Protein backbone atom coordinates (compact mmCIF):
# COMPACT_ATOMS: atom_id res chain seq x y z
CA UNK A 1 0.00 0.00 0.00
CA UNK A 2 1.25 3.46 -0.84
CA UNK A 3 2.60 5.27 2.18
CA UNK A 4 1.64 8.92 2.23
CA UNK A 5 4.16 10.93 4.09
CA UNK A 6 2.50 14.21 4.83
CA UNK A 7 5.41 15.45 6.92
CA UNK A 8 8.45 16.22 4.82
CA UNK A 9 10.88 16.06 7.75
CA UNK A 10 12.90 12.89 7.04
CA UNK A 11 13.57 12.21 10.70
CA UNK A 12 9.95 11.63 11.58
CA UNK A 13 8.36 8.21 11.21
CA UNK A 14 6.49 7.69 7.96
CA UNK A 15 2.96 7.09 9.16
CA UNK A 16 0.19 6.52 6.70
CA UNK A 17 -2.13 9.49 6.33
CA UNK A 18 -4.25 9.77 9.51
CA UNK A 19 -2.09 7.14 11.27
CA UNK A 20 -4.18 4.04 10.49
CA UNK A 21 -3.22 1.70 7.65
CA UNK A 22 -5.61 1.45 4.71
CA UNK A 23 -6.86 -2.04 5.57
CA UNK A 24 -7.86 -0.89 9.06
CA UNK A 25 -9.60 2.15 7.61
CA UNK A 26 -11.57 -0.08 5.23
CA UNK A 27 -12.67 -2.30 8.13
CA UNK A 28 -13.77 0.73 10.18
CA UNK A 29 -15.50 2.26 7.14
CA UNK A 30 -17.49 -0.93 6.54
CA UNK A 31 -18.51 -0.94 10.21
CA UNK A 32 -19.54 2.73 9.94
CA UNK A 33 -21.75 2.08 6.90
CA UNK A 34 -23.53 -0.79 8.68
CA UNK A 35 -23.86 1.34 11.82
CA UNK A 36 -25.55 4.08 9.80
CA UNK A 37 -27.91 1.56 8.19
CA UNK A 38 -28.98 0.21 11.62
CA UNK A 39 -29.24 3.33 13.81
CA UNK A 40 -28.33 2.64 17.44
CA UNK A 41 -27.03 -0.90 16.87
CA UNK A 42 -23.48 -1.50 18.12
CA UNK A 43 -21.31 -2.90 15.32
CA UNK A 44 -18.26 -4.87 16.55
CA UNK A 45 -14.98 -3.77 14.99
CA UNK A 46 -11.30 -4.64 15.27
CA UNK A 47 -10.13 -1.80 17.49
CA UNK A 48 -6.42 -1.13 17.03
CA UNK A 49 -3.70 -0.18 19.46
CA UNK A 50 -3.33 3.58 19.30
CA UNK A 51 -0.42 5.69 20.52
CA UNK A 52 -2.34 6.59 23.66
CA UNK A 53 -4.04 4.53 26.33
CA UNK A 54 -7.47 3.06 25.89
CA UNK A 55 -9.94 5.22 27.73
CA UNK A 56 -8.43 8.39 26.30
CA UNK A 57 -10.63 8.47 23.25
CA UNK A 58 -9.15 5.76 21.06
CA UNK A 59 -12.57 4.82 19.67
CA UNK A 60 -13.32 8.37 18.62
CA UNK A 61 -9.82 8.80 17.21
CA UNK A 62 -10.13 5.67 15.06
CA UNK A 63 -13.50 6.82 13.70
CA UNK A 64 -12.11 10.28 12.94
CA UNK A 65 -9.00 8.77 11.32
CA UNK A 66 -11.20 6.63 9.05
CA UNK A 67 -13.34 9.54 7.84
CA UNK A 68 -11.03 12.58 7.82
CA UNK A 69 -9.68 13.98 4.55
CA UNK A 70 -7.90 17.06 3.23
CA UNK A 71 -11.19 18.97 2.86
CA UNK A 72 -12.14 18.62 6.52
CA UNK A 73 -11.87 21.07 9.37
CA UNK A 74 -11.59 19.38 12.74
CA UNK A 75 -12.79 20.59 16.12
CA UNK A 76 -12.04 18.57 19.25
CA UNK A 77 -13.71 19.20 22.59
CA UNK A 78 -13.34 17.63 26.00
CA UNK A 79 -16.29 18.30 28.35
CA UNK A 80 -17.19 21.22 26.10
CA UNK A 81 -13.76 22.86 26.25
CA UNK A 82 -11.35 23.21 23.33
CA UNK A 83 -8.37 23.86 25.58
CA UNK A 84 -8.22 20.87 27.93
CA UNK A 85 -5.58 18.13 27.80
CA UNK A 86 -7.51 15.46 25.91
CA UNK A 87 -8.81 17.90 23.31
CA UNK A 88 -5.43 19.56 22.75
CA UNK A 89 -3.53 16.28 22.37
CA UNK A 90 -6.09 14.74 19.99
CA UNK A 91 -6.14 17.90 17.90
CA UNK A 92 -2.35 17.83 17.72
CA UNK A 93 -2.42 14.14 16.84
CA UNK A 94 -4.45 14.89 13.72
CA UNK A 95 -2.45 17.99 12.89
CA UNK A 96 0.67 15.82 12.84
CA UNK A 97 -0.64 12.66 11.23
CA UNK A 98 -3.23 14.08 8.83
CA UNK A 99 -2.16 17.71 8.31
CA UNK A 100 -5.64 18.48 9.60
CA UNK A 101 -7.01 21.98 9.51
CA UNK A 102 -8.33 22.58 13.03
CA UNK A 103 -10.67 25.13 14.53
CA UNK A 104 -12.38 26.00 17.78
CA UNK A 105 -15.44 27.43 16.04
CA UNK A 106 -18.35 25.01 16.03
CA UNK A 107 -19.88 26.40 12.83
CA UNK A 108 -16.60 26.15 10.87
CA UNK A 109 -15.95 22.49 11.71
CA UNK A 110 -16.93 19.62 9.41
CA UNK A 111 -15.90 16.98 11.96
CA UNK A 112 -16.36 17.56 15.68
CA UNK A 113 -14.78 14.94 17.90
CA UNK A 114 -16.17 15.18 21.39
CA UNK A 115 -15.74 13.77 24.82
CA UNK A 116 -18.94 14.06 26.85
CA UNK A 117 -20.62 17.16 25.39
CA UNK A 118 -22.56 18.38 22.37
CA UNK A 119 -21.73 22.02 21.48
CA UNK A 120 -24.32 24.64 22.40
CA UNK A 121 -24.36 26.15 18.91
CA UNK A 122 -26.86 24.24 16.76
CA UNK A 123 -25.29 21.63 14.48
CA UNK A 124 -25.73 21.92 10.72
CA UNK A 125 -26.36 19.49 7.90
CA UNK A 126 -23.07 18.11 6.60
CA UNK A 127 -21.33 18.21 9.98
CA UNK A 128 -20.22 14.94 11.58
CA UNK A 129 -20.13 14.48 15.34
CA UNK A 130 -17.69 11.81 16.57
CA UNK A 131 -18.28 10.74 20.17
CA UNK A 132 -15.69 9.07 22.38
CA UNK A 133 -17.52 6.30 24.20
CA UNK A 134 -16.18 4.50 27.30
CA UNK A 135 -19.10 2.06 27.68
CA UNK A 136 -21.22 1.55 24.56
CA UNK A 137 -23.58 -0.97 26.17
CA UNK A 138 -26.45 0.82 27.97
CA UNK A 139 -27.52 -2.46 29.60
CA UNK A 140 -24.08 -3.44 30.92
CA UNK A 141 -24.65 -2.32 34.51
CA UNK A 142 -27.86 -4.31 34.56
CA UNK A 143 -26.54 -7.44 32.84
CA UNK A 144 -22.79 -8.13 32.84
CA UNK A 145 -22.79 -10.83 30.13
CA UNK A 146 -22.31 -9.76 26.53
CA UNK A 147 -24.10 -12.93 25.33
CA UNK A 148 -27.19 -11.84 27.30
CA UNK A 149 -27.21 -8.15 26.40
CA UNK A 150 -26.82 -9.13 22.74
CA UNK A 151 -30.00 -11.22 22.99
CA UNK A 152 -31.78 -8.41 24.81
CA UNK A 153 -30.99 -6.06 21.91
CA UNK A 154 -31.86 -8.73 19.33
CA UNK A 155 -35.32 -9.21 20.81
CA UNK A 156 -35.81 -5.59 21.95
CA UNK A 157 -36.12 -6.83 25.54
CA UNK A 158 -35.71 -3.53 27.33
CA UNK A 159 -37.97 -4.16 30.31
CA UNK A 160 -34.96 -4.27 32.65
CA UNK A 161 -34.00 -0.71 31.72
CA UNK A 162 -37.54 0.54 32.39
CA UNK A 163 -37.48 -1.28 35.77
CA UNK A 164 -34.22 0.45 36.65
CA UNK A 165 -35.69 3.87 35.84
CA UNK A 166 -38.87 2.94 37.76
CA UNK A 167 -36.88 1.92 40.84
CA UNK A 168 -35.09 5.28 40.70
CA UNK A 169 -38.43 7.05 40.72
CA UNK A 170 -39.82 4.81 43.48
CA UNK A 171 -36.80 5.47 45.68
CA UNK A 172 -35.92 9.08 44.94
CA UNK A 173 -39.02 10.51 43.31
CA UNK A 174 -37.24 11.13 40.00
CA UNK A 175 -34.80 9.49 37.60
CA UNK A 176 -31.39 10.23 39.11
CA UNK A 177 -29.35 9.41 36.00
CA UNK A 178 -27.88 12.74 34.92
CA UNK A 179 -25.41 11.66 32.24
CA UNK A 180 -25.25 8.77 29.74
CA UNK A 181 -29.06 8.84 29.96
CA UNK A 182 -30.38 5.95 27.80
CA UNK A 183 -32.16 6.78 24.56
CA UNK A 184 -34.35 4.83 22.14
CA UNK A 185 -33.11 5.25 18.56
CA UNK A 186 -35.48 4.98 15.61
CA UNK A 187 -37.95 3.19 17.90
CA UNK A 188 -35.84 0.03 17.95
CA UNK A 189 -32.49 0.06 19.79
CA UNK A 190 -31.77 1.39 23.25
CA UNK A 191 -28.47 3.24 22.96
CA UNK A 192 -25.94 4.83 25.31
CA UNK A 193 -25.48 8.42 24.12
CA UNK A 194 -21.95 8.33 25.67
CA UNK A 195 -21.56 10.21 28.96
CA UNK A 196 -23.00 13.49 27.74
CA UNK A 197 -25.16 15.25 30.34
CA UNK A 198 -28.85 14.53 29.85
CA UNK A 199 -29.05 18.27 29.12
CA UNK A 200 -27.64 17.40 25.68
CA UNK A 201 -30.00 14.49 24.92
CA UNK A 202 -32.67 16.66 23.23
CA UNK A 203 -30.00 17.96 20.81
CA UNK A 204 -29.67 14.45 19.35
CA UNK A 205 -33.35 14.22 18.44
CA UNK A 206 -33.76 14.84 14.68
CA UNK A 207 -30.33 16.50 14.54
CA UNK A 208 -29.33 17.58 11.01
CA UNK A 209 -25.76 16.32 11.67
CA UNK A 210 -24.53 12.76 11.33
CA UNK A 211 -23.52 11.30 14.71
CA UNK A 212 -20.89 8.55 14.95
CA UNK A 213 -19.84 6.79 18.16
CA UNK A 214 -16.56 4.94 18.70
CA UNK A 215 -15.69 2.80 21.72
CA UNK A 216 -12.05 1.71 21.39
CA UNK A 217 -11.64 -0.45 24.47
CA UNK A 218 -15.05 -2.11 24.02
CA UNK A 219 -14.54 -2.41 20.24
CA UNK A 220 -17.91 -1.07 19.15
CA UNK A 221 -19.04 1.51 16.60
CA UNK A 222 -22.56 2.87 16.34
CA UNK A 223 -24.29 5.75 14.64
CA UNK A 224 -27.32 7.98 14.42
CA UNK A 225 -28.00 9.32 10.90
CA UNK A 226 -29.37 12.86 10.46
CA UNK A 227 -33.09 13.39 11.09
CA UNK A 228 -33.46 10.27 13.22
CA UNK A 229 -35.73 9.86 16.21
CA UNK A 230 -33.69 9.77 19.45
CA UNK A 231 -36.09 9.61 22.43
CA UNK A 232 -34.89 9.67 26.02
CA UNK A 233 -36.55 6.85 27.98
CA UNK A 234 -39.20 8.02 30.43
CA UNK A 235 -42.72 7.37 31.71
CA UNK A 236 -45.98 9.15 30.85
CA UNK A 237 -46.35 10.40 34.45
CA UNK A 238 -42.61 11.12 34.84
CA UNK A 239 -41.59 12.79 31.59
CA UNK A 240 -37.90 13.29 30.78
CA UNK A 241 -36.50 16.55 32.14
CA UNK A 242 -33.14 18.22 31.63
CA UNK A 243 -31.03 20.01 34.23
CA UNK A 244 -31.59 23.69 34.97
CA UNK A 245 -29.65 26.23 36.99
CA UNK A 246 -30.81 29.01 39.25
CA UNK A 247 -28.22 31.46 37.94
CA UNK A 248 -26.82 32.26 34.50
CA UNK A 249 -23.18 31.81 33.42
CA UNK A 250 -20.98 34.07 35.58
CA UNK A 251 -18.84 35.08 32.61
CA UNK A 252 -21.21 35.49 29.66
CA UNK A 253 -24.63 35.58 31.31
CA UNK A 254 -26.04 32.73 29.21
CA UNK A 255 -29.15 31.29 30.84
CA UNK A 256 -29.67 28.47 28.35
CA UNK A 257 -26.32 26.66 28.30
CA UNK A 258 -24.89 23.78 30.34
CA UNK A 259 -22.99 25.20 33.33
CA UNK A 260 -20.04 23.80 35.24
CA UNK A 261 -19.74 24.57 38.94
CA UNK A 262 -16.29 25.94 39.74
CA UNK A 263 -15.05 26.25 43.34
CA UNK A 264 -13.13 29.53 43.56
CA UNK A 265 -11.83 29.68 47.14
CA UNK A 266 -11.79 27.65 50.34
CA UNK A 267 -14.60 29.73 51.90
CA UNK A 268 -17.35 27.93 49.99
CA UNK A 269 -17.31 30.41 47.14
CA UNK A 270 -18.30 29.09 43.74
CA UNK A 271 -19.26 30.23 40.29
CA UNK A 272 -21.17 28.69 37.40
CA UNK A 273 -19.64 28.98 33.93
CA UNK A 274 -20.50 27.62 30.50
CA UNK A 275 -19.01 24.18 29.88
CA UNK A 276 -18.80 25.01 26.15
CA UNK A 277 -15.75 27.31 26.07
CA UNK A 278 -16.24 28.46 22.47
CA UNK A 279 -19.90 29.31 23.10
CA UNK A 280 -18.92 31.37 26.16
CA UNK A 281 -16.14 33.21 24.30
CA UNK A 282 -18.41 33.95 21.35
CA UNK A 283 -21.04 35.43 23.64
CA UNK A 284 -18.47 37.55 25.49
CA UNK A 285 -17.15 38.80 22.15
CA UNK A 286 -20.69 39.81 21.28
CA UNK A 287 -20.80 41.94 24.42
CA UNK A 288 -22.71 39.67 26.80
CA UNK A 289 -21.37 40.15 30.31
CA UNK A 290 -21.85 37.91 33.33
CA UNK A 291 -21.77 38.98 36.98
CA UNK A 292 -18.18 37.85 37.62
CA UNK A 293 -16.57 38.69 34.28
CA UNK A 294 -14.88 41.85 35.61
CA UNK A 295 -13.32 39.93 38.53
CA UNK A 296 -12.12 37.09 36.30
CA UNK A 297 -10.73 39.56 33.80
CA UNK A 298 -8.86 41.48 36.52
CA UNK A 299 -7.15 38.24 37.49
CA UNK A 300 -6.27 37.61 33.79
CA UNK A 301 -8.22 34.35 33.85
CA UNK A 302 -10.26 35.37 30.81
CA UNK A 303 -10.05 38.15 28.30
CA UNK A 304 -12.68 40.82 28.59
CA UNK A 305 -13.44 41.96 25.04
CA UNK A 306 -15.36 45.00 26.22
CA UNK A 307 -12.40 46.51 28.02
CA UNK A 308 -10.25 48.98 26.06
Amino acid at each position, binding site marked *: MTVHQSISDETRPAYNYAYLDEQTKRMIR*RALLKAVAIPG*YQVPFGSREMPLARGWGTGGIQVTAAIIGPDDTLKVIDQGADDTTNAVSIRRFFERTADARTTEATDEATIIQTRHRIPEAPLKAGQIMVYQVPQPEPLRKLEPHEAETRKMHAWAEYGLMQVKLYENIARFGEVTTTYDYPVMVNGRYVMAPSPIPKFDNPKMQMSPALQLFGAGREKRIYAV*PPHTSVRSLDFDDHPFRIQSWEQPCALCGAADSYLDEVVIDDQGGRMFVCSDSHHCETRRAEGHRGAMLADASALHLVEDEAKP
Partner: protein
Amino acid sequence: MTPNDTLIGAGFADPVFQSQGAFRALLAALSEPGLACDLGDAVVPPAGLEPATAVALLTLADYETPIWLPAALRDGPAGAWLRFHCGAALVDDPAKAAFAVIDGAATEPKLAAFNAGDDQFPDRSTTVLVQCAGLDGGEAVTLEGPGIAGQRSIAPTGLRPAFWAEVEDNAAVYPLGVDVLLVHGAQVLGLPRSTQIVEIR
Protein backbone atom coordinates in the same frame (compact mmCIF):
# COMPACT_ATOMS: atom_id res chain seq x y z
CA MET B 1 -9.58 -13.36 -26.72
CA THR B 2 -9.09 -9.63 -27.17
CA PRO B 3 -6.33 -7.82 -25.32
CA ASN B 4 -8.92 -6.23 -23.03
CA ASP B 5 -9.84 -9.62 -21.61
CA THR B 6 -6.34 -10.30 -20.41
CA LEU B 7 -5.17 -6.84 -19.38
CA ILE B 8 -6.31 -5.71 -15.97
CA GLY B 9 -6.92 -1.96 -15.88
CA ALA B 10 -5.51 0.33 -13.23
CA GLY B 11 -7.10 0.85 -9.82
CA PHE B 12 -6.80 4.02 -7.73
CA ALA B 13 -3.83 6.18 -8.69
CA ASP B 14 -3.87 7.62 -5.16
CA PRO B 15 -5.51 4.98 -2.95
CA VAL B 16 -5.42 6.91 0.33
CA PHE B 17 -7.22 10.06 -0.75
CA GLN B 18 -9.38 8.65 -3.53
CA SER B 19 -10.78 5.96 -1.23
CA GLN B 20 -11.31 8.54 1.53
CA GLY B 21 -13.29 10.78 -0.81
CA ALA B 22 -15.31 7.87 -2.15
CA PHE B 23 -16.03 6.62 1.36
CA ARG B 24 -17.40 10.00 2.43
CA ALA B 25 -19.75 9.94 -0.57
CA LEU B 26 -20.88 6.43 0.37
CA LEU B 27 -21.35 7.51 4.00
CA ALA B 28 -23.46 10.44 2.81
CA ALA B 29 -25.47 8.14 0.52
CA LEU B 30 -26.38 5.72 3.31
CA SER B 31 -26.89 8.35 6.01
CA GLU B 32 -29.17 10.38 3.74
CA PRO B 33 -31.09 7.75 1.78
CA GLY B 34 -32.38 8.78 -1.61
CA LEU B 35 -29.73 11.47 -2.09
CA ALA B 36 -27.61 10.83 -5.19
CA CYS B 37 -23.92 11.15 -4.29
CA ASP B 38 -21.01 11.44 -6.69
CA LEU B 39 -18.19 8.91 -6.36
CA GLY B 40 -16.12 10.59 -9.05
CA ASP B 41 -14.30 9.07 -12.02
CA ALA B 42 -11.07 7.99 -10.35
CA VAL B 43 -10.88 4.67 -12.17
CA VAL B 44 -11.75 3.29 -15.58
CA PRO B 45 -14.01 0.38 -14.66
CA PRO B 46 -13.73 -3.05 -16.26
CA ALA B 47 -16.48 -4.10 -18.67
CA GLY B 48 -19.75 -4.74 -16.87
CA LEU B 49 -19.16 -2.51 -13.85
CA GLU B 50 -20.47 1.03 -13.56
CA PRO B 51 -17.72 3.52 -12.57
CA ALA B 52 -19.35 4.04 -9.16
CA THR B 53 -19.58 0.27 -8.58
CA ALA B 54 -15.86 -0.11 -9.26
CA VAL B 55 -14.95 2.82 -7.02
CA ALA B 56 -17.21 1.62 -4.19
CA LEU B 57 -15.74 -1.89 -4.24
CA LEU B 58 -12.16 -0.60 -4.44
CA THR B 59 -12.94 1.55 -1.41
CA LEU B 60 -14.66 -1.07 0.73
CA ALA B 61 -13.82 -4.61 -0.39
CA ASP B 62 -10.75 -6.63 0.55
CA TYR B 63 -9.79 -10.18 1.51
CA GLU B 64 -12.31 -10.10 4.38
CA THR B 65 -15.31 -9.47 2.15
CA PRO B 66 -16.52 -12.10 -0.34
CA ILE B 67 -18.16 -10.58 -3.41
CA TRP B 68 -21.01 -12.06 -5.43
CA LEU B 69 -21.19 -11.20 -9.14
CA PRO B 70 -23.50 -12.42 -11.90
CA ALA B 71 -21.83 -15.35 -13.71
CA ALA B 72 -21.08 -13.29 -16.84
CA LEU B 73 -19.20 -10.66 -14.82
CA ARG B 74 -17.50 -13.14 -12.54
CA ASP B 75 -15.92 -15.03 -15.39
CA GLY B 76 -15.11 -11.87 -17.35
CA PRO B 77 -12.73 -8.94 -16.86
CA ALA B 78 -14.73 -7.57 -13.91
CA GLY B 79 -14.04 -10.68 -11.84
CA ALA B 80 -10.34 -10.62 -12.65
CA TRP B 81 -10.16 -6.89 -11.91
CA LEU B 82 -11.79 -7.27 -8.47
CA ARG B 83 -9.68 -10.31 -7.58
CA PHE B 84 -6.53 -8.42 -8.46
CA HIS B 85 -7.26 -5.03 -6.92
CA CYS B 86 -9.31 -5.98 -3.86
CA GLY B 87 -7.97 -9.47 -3.19
CA ALA B 88 -11.58 -10.43 -2.57
CA ALA B 89 -12.97 -13.93 -3.01
CA LEU B 90 -15.75 -14.24 -5.58
CA VAL B 91 -18.47 -16.55 -4.26
CA ASP B 92 -21.22 -18.53 -5.98
CA ASP B 93 -23.67 -18.44 -3.10
CA PRO B 94 -25.37 -15.02 -2.77
CA ALA B 95 -26.00 -15.68 0.95
CA LYS B 96 -22.25 -15.82 1.61
CA ALA B 97 -21.45 -12.44 0.09
CA ALA B 98 -20.53 -9.27 1.97
CA PHE B 99 -20.94 -7.26 -1.23
CA ALA B 100 -22.92 -8.09 -4.34
CA VAL B 101 -23.37 -6.46 -7.73
CA ILE B 102 -26.62 -7.12 -9.57
CA ASP B 103 -28.22 -5.84 -12.73
CA GLY B 104 -31.35 -3.92 -11.76
CA ALA B 105 -33.26 -5.18 -14.80
CA ALA B 106 -32.42 -8.87 -14.37
CA THR B 107 -35.04 -10.96 -12.60
CA GLU B 108 -32.56 -12.98 -10.54
CA PRO B 109 -31.27 -13.05 -7.88
CA LYS B 110 -33.89 -11.50 -5.59
CA LEU B 111 -32.77 -9.23 -2.75
CA ALA B 112 -34.01 -11.92 -0.37
CA ALA B 113 -31.40 -14.35 -1.74
CA PHE B 114 -28.63 -12.34 -0.04
CA ASN B 115 -27.59 -12.48 3.58
CA ALA B 116 -29.94 -10.41 5.75
CA GLY B 117 -27.83 -10.88 8.89
CA ASP B 118 -29.12 -12.55 12.02
CA ASP B 119 -30.99 -11.07 14.94
CA GLN B 120 -27.90 -10.81 17.14
CA PHE B 121 -25.60 -9.59 14.34
CA PRO B 122 -27.71 -7.68 11.80
CA ASP B 123 -24.53 -5.97 10.59
CA ARG B 124 -23.33 -9.17 8.93
CA SER B 125 -25.67 -8.62 6.01
CA THR B 126 -24.86 -8.16 2.34
CA THR B 127 -24.52 -4.72 0.80
CA VAL B 128 -26.09 -4.99 -2.66
CA LEU B 129 -24.99 -2.65 -5.46
CA VAL B 130 -27.84 -2.51 -7.97
CA GLN B 131 -26.66 -1.23 -11.36
CA CYS B 132 -29.57 0.51 -13.05
CA ALA B 133 -30.21 2.51 -16.22
CA GLY B 134 -30.56 5.88 -14.47
CA LEU B 135 -31.20 7.58 -11.13
CA ASP B 136 -33.95 9.88 -12.42
CA GLY B 137 -36.72 9.93 -14.98
CA GLY B 138 -38.48 6.80 -13.80
CA GLU B 139 -41.58 6.30 -11.67
CA ALA B 140 -41.55 8.42 -8.53
CA VAL B 141 -40.94 6.57 -5.29
CA THR B 142 -41.43 8.39 -1.99
CA LEU B 143 -39.11 7.43 0.87
CA GLU B 144 -39.28 7.97 4.61
CA GLY B 145 -37.06 7.01 7.52
CA PRO B 146 -33.82 7.84 9.34
CA GLY B 147 -31.66 10.29 7.40
CA ILE B 148 -34.65 11.87 5.65
CA ALA B 149 -36.24 15.09 6.91
CA GLY B 150 -39.91 14.35 6.23
CA GLN B 151 -40.02 12.59 2.87
CA ARG B 152 -37.78 12.34 -0.17
CA SER B 153 -38.73 11.39 -3.70
CA ILE B 154 -36.53 9.41 -6.09
CA ALA B 155 -37.19 8.16 -9.63
CA PRO B 156 -34.61 5.61 -10.78
CA THR B 157 -35.09 3.78 -14.05
CA GLY B 158 -34.21 0.36 -15.39
CA LEU B 159 -35.34 -1.72 -12.42
CA ARG B 160 -37.26 -4.98 -12.65
CA PRO B 161 -41.03 -4.66 -12.07
CA ALA B 162 -41.02 -6.40 -8.67
CA PHE B 163 -38.01 -4.48 -7.36
CA TRP B 164 -39.87 -2.06 -5.08
CA ALA B 165 -41.91 -4.90 -3.59
CA GLU B 166 -38.61 -6.59 -2.73
CA VAL B 167 -37.33 -3.37 -1.12
CA GLU B 168 -40.54 -3.16 0.92
CA ASP B 169 -40.12 -6.77 2.06
CA ASN B 170 -36.51 -5.99 2.95
CA ALA B 171 -37.54 -2.99 5.08
CA ALA B 172 -40.23 -5.09 6.77
CA VAL B 173 -37.67 -7.37 8.41
CA TYR B 174 -35.77 -4.38 9.93
CA PRO B 175 -33.35 -4.47 11.79
CA LEU B 176 -32.40 -7.36 9.52
CA GLY B 177 -32.12 -6.94 5.77
CA VAL B 178 -29.66 -6.02 3.05
CA ASP B 179 -28.51 -2.48 2.37
CA VAL B 180 -29.02 -1.41 -1.23
CA LEU B 181 -26.97 1.07 -3.23
CA LEU B 182 -28.51 2.07 -6.56
CA VAL B 183 -25.66 2.81 -8.95
CA HIS B 184 -25.55 4.55 -12.30
CA GLY B 185 -22.48 6.13 -13.88
CA ALA B 186 -20.45 7.87 -11.18
CA GLN B 187 -23.47 8.27 -8.92
CA VAL B 188 -24.75 6.22 -6.04
CA LEU B 189 -28.02 6.44 -4.10
CA GLY B 190 -28.48 4.67 -0.79
CA LEU B 191 -31.48 2.59 0.28
CA PRO B 192 -30.49 1.17 3.68
CA ARG B 193 -32.82 -1.32 5.34
CA SER B 194 -34.14 1.45 7.64
CA THR B 195 -35.75 3.31 4.71
CA GLN B 196 -39.49 2.82 4.23
CA ILE B 197 -41.26 3.02 0.86
CA VAL B 198 -44.27 5.31 1.35
CA GLU B 199 -45.71 5.56 -2.12
CA ILE B 200 -44.92 4.48 -5.70
CA ARG B 201 -46.45 6.50 -8.54
